[in-house]
C-alpha cells in the first residue's frame, strides 16, 4: 500500500475494485465503515454482488478480466471533462515530457513488437532528451508528442459506451461510478483505490494496477491522506515475506536478483542503478551500491571483502523465469529434484493443479512444513492415484503457528508489528526459523567434509545465538543493520557494533551490514521499534500513529507524501495535511512537519517522486514489458473478440500449453475463482477447523438464477464444471448476486467458484484450480486465476 489501513478513514471516496475486502480483509471494513459514516461514498466494482458490494453505496458490475477497459473509460471521462488536478499533473507527473517519435500505437500493438519473439523493443518508448541529457518538457501540455497529448489520444478510444460494451457494466451505474470517483480531482477531495488478487491474477494484472495508478495521479490522489493505490495483500505477512525477497527475481529490500551474465558486482550495479542528470531529481536508487554491499556483508560478513567483490559471486544468478508456473513446468518435465513447501499447498492453490499434483510425483523428495497434513503432503494418495507408482520421498514437519512464536508480522500498510509468543507449540512442532536453522547448521557441518562450491554455505553468517532456537531478535537486528567497524558517515561518527539508525548511513565500502535496507531503523540502539505500542497520533490527526510499531521505509506512513504539497510546500488540502513546510523550524532554516517526508530537502530543492530517476510519477513508462500505457486485452480465454483491436489477448504473454486453451464454442461461460471469509487460502487451517467447516462445509459454484433456469439447475444441485484443463464437481448456489452480462449485444454468463477445497482434511471437495490455466501475467507471471472459460451442467449425486 502507498497508504495504510487507518488512513482509509480520511477518504471521501473509497473505490474497492479487484478486491472483496469485506470477505477477505474484514478488518479493512472497520476503517471504511468509519469514513462512510462521515459521509464518504463507497464504490464496489466486481463481477458478483459480494459481501463488499452489500456494504457499498454504489455497486457496478464488470465482466472478469476487463478492468482496463473499465478504468481507461474512467481516465477518459476525467480527461474529457477536465476532471483532473491539473497543477498536480503538470508539476508531479511526466505528462509534460516529450516522447520519441519512435513511439507509436496501432491496432492493439505498440511500436517495437517482434512477433517471432513475442516481445517488445522497449527502447522505442523513450523520452526525448535535451543537450544535457534531461528529458524535454512542455509545461503547457500542448505539444503533440508530450505524454499528456499522447494520453488523450490513447484513452479517447475508451468512451463510456465502448467501456460498457466491453465490460458489461450498466451505463447508468458506470456513469455514476465515473462521476463520483473523478469528483476527487478537486484538491480538497480525495479518493482511495483498494485492490487485491481480483486485479493482479490476470494476464494483464500489472497493467490493471497501472491503470489505477494513472487515474489516481490524474486526480492528484497519490501522496495524499485518504488517497493512494492500495494493495490489500492476500495473506498475513505476505508483505513481510516479499520485503524479505520471497519472489525469485528479488533479493531482500526489492534489490534485483542478479541474472546470468552479470558476473561482476560492477556489471550488476551498472544494470541496477538508475542514473539521472536532472539536479532536481533525488534519484534515491542511486544509493543501490550501498544497499547491495550491506546485504552481502550481512550474508558473508568478514568473507565479503572489496577484493572479492564482497562475495558477489556467491549469489546465485537466475537463468530465466523461475516463477511459480515455471517451477512446476520444470518439475513436471523432471528437471527438479526436491521441493520445500513452507505453509504452502500447491496441490490446491496452484493453477492447473491436476498437472501440479502430477509434477510433485516427479520429485525425489518433498518437504512440507505445516500445521496440518496438507493436500500437498499427501498428494501421493489422492483419489484416483496408485501410491506404489510414486517414488517421491515425503517429509511432513509439524510447524509452530503464528501465536506459538515471537517475531514480526508486516501488514499491507507496511507496518512491521512485533508479536509475542502466546503459547508453546504443541509436541514436536517447531518454528520455521528453527527448522531452517537446523538445516543450515547441518549443511555447514556436511560441507566441512568438502563438496562442490562450499564457500557460500561455510561462510554464511549464522549468528543467532547458541540455542537450537534462533534468537529472533538477533535476526531482526541483522535486518536493521549495524556498523562492522568505526566509521564516519555524513559527518557523523559511528562505532563498530552500533545498530544503524537508518539507511541513509549505509555504505558501499563494507563498513556496514544490513539484511534488508528498507528495514534500517526498525531495530536500533533505542530498541525494537516494531514492538512499540504508543497510541498517540501525530499533530496532523490523520491516524498515522507514528509511535505504534514501525513502518518501512523510515517510519513513513504515507508514501510519496511530498506530492501532498504544492511546489512551495503548502498542502493541497490544508484540512488533511500529511506534511507541510514550516519556515520557522530549525532556527529559521525551515523544516517539514507531520509524517516523515520523502527526503529532508526543502520543497523546491527536489522533485517529489524520489524513487524515480525522473523525480516524477510516470503516466507513460517503458518499465513494463507489455506497453507504456495500459491497453485492454481479453483474458487468454474469452467468449468475445477484443472490441478495441485485432489483438485478442496480450501479445507478449507466455503460453505454456497452447493445446490447453478452451474455445468459447465448447466452453461458453466465463469463470472466476475467489475466497470466502470462512476459509483461508488452500484450506489447510480452516478446512480442519470444525467451527469454520460448519459455516461453509462444501465446495460450491455461484451462478445466476437466469443461467440456472436455462440449465435446469436448482439451488443445492450437484453440477459439473469443465475446462480445457480438467473438471470438478460442486454444489450449485443459485443467486441473484450473479447476473449475465450483455457484451456488445451478446449475453455472456459468468460463474464463480471458491478455491479452498482439496482431498485432505476434515472438509474435502474438488479444487477449483483443477480448472485454471498455466498462464501468467506478462510482467510477473502471476497465474490468471480470475478469468477463464468453462462449461457447466447438472451432474448426478456423488458419493
Amino acid at each position, binding site marked *: 500500500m502507498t497508504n495504510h489501513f487507518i488512513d482509509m478513514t480520511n477518504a471521501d471516496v473509497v473505490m474497492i475494485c479487484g478486491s472483496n475486502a469485506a470477505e477477505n480483509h474484514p478488518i479493512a471494513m472497520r476503517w471504511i465503515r468509519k469514513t462512510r459514516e462521515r459521509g464518504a461514498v463507497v464504490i464496489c466494482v466486481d463481477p458478483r454482488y459480494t*459481501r463488499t458490494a452489500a456494504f457499498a453505496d454504489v455497486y457496478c458490475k464488470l465482466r472478469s478480466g476487463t478492468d482496463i477497459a473499465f478504468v481507461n473509460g474512467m481516465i477518459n471521462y476525467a480527461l474529457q471533462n477536465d476532471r483532473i488536478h491539473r497543477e498536480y499533473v503538470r508539476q508531479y507527473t511526466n505528462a509534460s515530457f516529450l516522447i520519441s517519435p519512435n513511439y507509436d500505437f496501432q491496432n492493439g500493438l505498440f511500436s517495437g513488437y517482434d512477433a517471432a519473439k513475442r516481445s517488445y523493443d522497449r527502447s522505442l518508448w523513450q523520452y526525448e532528451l535535451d543537450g544535457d541529457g534531461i528529458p524535454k518538457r512542455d509545461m503547457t501540455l500542448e505539444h503533440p508528442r508530450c505524454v499528456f497529448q499522447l494520453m488523450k489520444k490513447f484513452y479517447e478510444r475508451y468512451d463510456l459506451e465502448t467501456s460498457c460494451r466491453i465490460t458489461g457494466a450498466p451505463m447508468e451505474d458506470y456513469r455514476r461510478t465515473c462521476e463520483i470517483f473523478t469528483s476527487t480531482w478537486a484538491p480538497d477531495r480525495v479518493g482511495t483505490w483498494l485492490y487485491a488478487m481480483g486485479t493482479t491474477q490476470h494476464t494483464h494484472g500489472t497493467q490493471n494496477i497501472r491503470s489505477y495508478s494513472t487515474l489516481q495521479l490524474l486526480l492528484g490522489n497519490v501522496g495524499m491522506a485518504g488517497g493512494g493505490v492500495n494493495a490489500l495483500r492476500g495473506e498475513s505477512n505476505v508483505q513481510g515475506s516479499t520485503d524479505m525477497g520471497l519472489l525469485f527475481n528479488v533479493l531482500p529490500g526489492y534489490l534485483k536478483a542478479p541474472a546470468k551474465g552479470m558476473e561482476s558486482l560492477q556489471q550488476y550495479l551498472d544494470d541496477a542503478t538508475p542514473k539521472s542528470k536532472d539536479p532536481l531529481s533525488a534519484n534515491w536508487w542511486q544509493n543501490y551500491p550501498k544497499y547491495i554491499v550491506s546485504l552481502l556483508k550481512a550474508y558473508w560478513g568478514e568473507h565479503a571483502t572489496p577484493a572479492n567483490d564482497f562475495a558477489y559471486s556467491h549469489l546465485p544468478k537466475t537463468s530465466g523465469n523461475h516463477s511459480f508456473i515455471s517451477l512446476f513446468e520444470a518439475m513436471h518435465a523432471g528437471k527438479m529434484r526436491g521441493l520445500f513447501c513452507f505453509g504452502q499447498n500447491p496441490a490446491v492453490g496452484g493453477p492447473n493443479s491436476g498437472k501440479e499434483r502430477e509434477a510433485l510425483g516427479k520429485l525425489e523428495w518433498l518437504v512440507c512444513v505445516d500445521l496440518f497434513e496438507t493436500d500437498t503432503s499427501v498428494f501421493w494418495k489422492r483419489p484416483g492415484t496408485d501410491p506404489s507408482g510414486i517414488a517421491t520421498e515425503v517429509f511432513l514437519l509439524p510447524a509452530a503457528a503464528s501465536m506459538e512464536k515471537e517475531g514480526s508480522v508486516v501488514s499491507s500498510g507496511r507496518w512491521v508489528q512485533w508479536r509475542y509468543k502466546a503459547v508453546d507449540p504443541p509436541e514436536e512442532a517447531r518454528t520455521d526459523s528453527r527448522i531452517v536453522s537446523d538445516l543450515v547448521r547441518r549443511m555447514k557441518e556436511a560441507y566441512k567434509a568438502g563438496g562442490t562450491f562450499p564457500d557460500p554455505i561455510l561462510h554464511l553468517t549464522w549468528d543467532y545465538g547458541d540455542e537450537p532456537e534462533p534468537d529472533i531478535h538477533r535476526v531482526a537486528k541483522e535486518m536493521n543493520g549495524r556498523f562492522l567497524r568505526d566509521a564516519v558517515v555524513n559527518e557523523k561518527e559511528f562505532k563498530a557494533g552500533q545498530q544503524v539508525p537508518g539507511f541513509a548511513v549505509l555504505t558501499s565500502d563494507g563498513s556496514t551490514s544490513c539484511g534488508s535496507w528498507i528495514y534500517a531503523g526498525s531495530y536500533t540502539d533505542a530498541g525494537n521499534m516494531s514492538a512499540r505500542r504508543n497510541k498517540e497520533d501525530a499533530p496532523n490527526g490523520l491516524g498515522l500513529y507514528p509511535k505504534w510499531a514501525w513502518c518501512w521505509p523510515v517510519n513513513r506512513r504515507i508514501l510519496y507524501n511530498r506530492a501532498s504539497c504544492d511546489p512551495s510546500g503548502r498542502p493541497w488540502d490544508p484540512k488533511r495535511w500529511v506534511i507541510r513546510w514550516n519556515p520557522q523550524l530549525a532556527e529559521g532554516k525551515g523544516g517539514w512537519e507531520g509524517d516523515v517526508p520523502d527526503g529532508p530537502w526543502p520543497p523546491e530543492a527536489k522533485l517529489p517522486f524520489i524513487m524515480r530517476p525522473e523525480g516524477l510519477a510516470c503516466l507513460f513508462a517503458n518499465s513494463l514489458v507489455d506497453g507504456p500505457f495500459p491497453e485492454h486485452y481479453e483474458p487468454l480465454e474469452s467468449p468475445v473478440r477484443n472490441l478495441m483491436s485485432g489483438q485478442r489477448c496480450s501479445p507478449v504473454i507466455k503460453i505454456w500449453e497452447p493445446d490447453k486453451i478452451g474455445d468459447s464454442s465448447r466452453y461458453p461461460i466465463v469463470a472466476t475463482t475467489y475466497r470466502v471469509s470462512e476459509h483461508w487460502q488452500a484450506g489447510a487451517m480452516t478446512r480442519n477447523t470444525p467451527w469454520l467447516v460448519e459455516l461453509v462445509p462444501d465446495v460450491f459454484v455461484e451462478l445466476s438464477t437466469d443461467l440456472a433456469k436455462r440449465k435446469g439447475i436448482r439451488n443445492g444441485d450437484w453440477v459439473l464444471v469443465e475446462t480445457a484443463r480438467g473438471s470438478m464437481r460442486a454444489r450449485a448456489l443459485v443467486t441473484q448476486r450473479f447476473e449475465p452480462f450483455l457484451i456488445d449485444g451478446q449475453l455472456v454468463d459468468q460463474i464463480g467458484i471458491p478455491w479452498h477445497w482439496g482431498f485432505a482434511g476434515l472438509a474435502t471437495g474438488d479444487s477449483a484450480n483443477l480448472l485454471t490455466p498455466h498462464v501468467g501475467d506478462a510482467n510477473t507471471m502471476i497465474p490468471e486465476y480470475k478469468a477463464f472459460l468453462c462449461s457447466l451442467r447438472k451432474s448426478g449425486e456423488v458419493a
Partner: protein
Amino acid sequence: MAMKAMLIDAMRCIGCRGCQVACKTWNGRKAEKTEFFSGPGYQNPGDLSAETLTLITYNEVQVNGRFDWVFGKKQCMHCNTPACAAACPVGALKKLESGPVIYQKHRCIGCRYCMLACPFEIPRFEYDSANPYITKCTMCADRLETGGVPACSKVCPTGAIAFGDRDEMIREAQHRINQNPSGYYHEIYGLEEAGGTCVLHISNVPFDKLGHRTDVPKHAVNKDTEQAMEAIPIVMLGLAALLGGIYMLRTRTVHHESDAPRADG
C-alpha cells in the same frame, strides 16, 4: 451497574460471521454437521440450536427498487420483562439488573416452558444429550462480570455489535438513524418489543427481512407458568415421565454443583 445492552447494526454488518465463531469458542459449543448451506445464501446452520446461540442470516432483498444483500443476527433479546423467566417454574432463568437474562442450569428441571413462552423463539433444548439443558445466548454474562464485553461484540471487525449502557445504546441508535435518515429504516427493534429488550437492532430494511419476528407485541408478554403450560401442545405432555426423570437427575447434579453455582449455560 447500569443496565447494559447490545446494539446490532445491519448497516455495519458485513456478514463475516466472526461473531458466530467467537460465540462458539467462548461458550464451548460444538460445531454442527452441515451440508452445503442450510438456509438462504451462506446461512449455516439452519437455525439456532442447542449448539448455536447466535446465527447470521443472509437475505437477498429489494430496497428502494434496487437489489441488496443484508445480514441479520439472531440471538436472545434479553428482554427487560423476560417471558421465559416468568414461565420458569423453578426460577432457573433470571433477569440481571445489568441486562442479561441468565440461566442457572443447576435449577432447571427441563420442563421447557421457557421455550414455549419466549416470543422470539430463542431457548433451545439439548435433545441429543443424556443430561439435557436449555441453551441460549447469555450476553456473555460471565465476561461482563469481569468488565469485559460479549465475545461476539469484541470480535466484530466493523463495530456492528456495540455494547454499553442501554440508554446510551438507544441514543447511539437514534443518532445513527438521524445522521443517515435516507439509509436507515426509522425504527429500533427492541426498543419496545416485548416491553423493551437489551438487544437492539437497527437496519436499512424492515426487520422481518432480516428474519426477526415483527408480530411481537410492544408490551411485556408475561405468561406465567400456568399460561405457558396451557400453551403446550397436547403431544408434548407425553414427555412428562421423561421430565420427571430429568428432574431426579438434576437434583443430584444440584447437589454436586451447589458449592460452586455458576451463572452460565
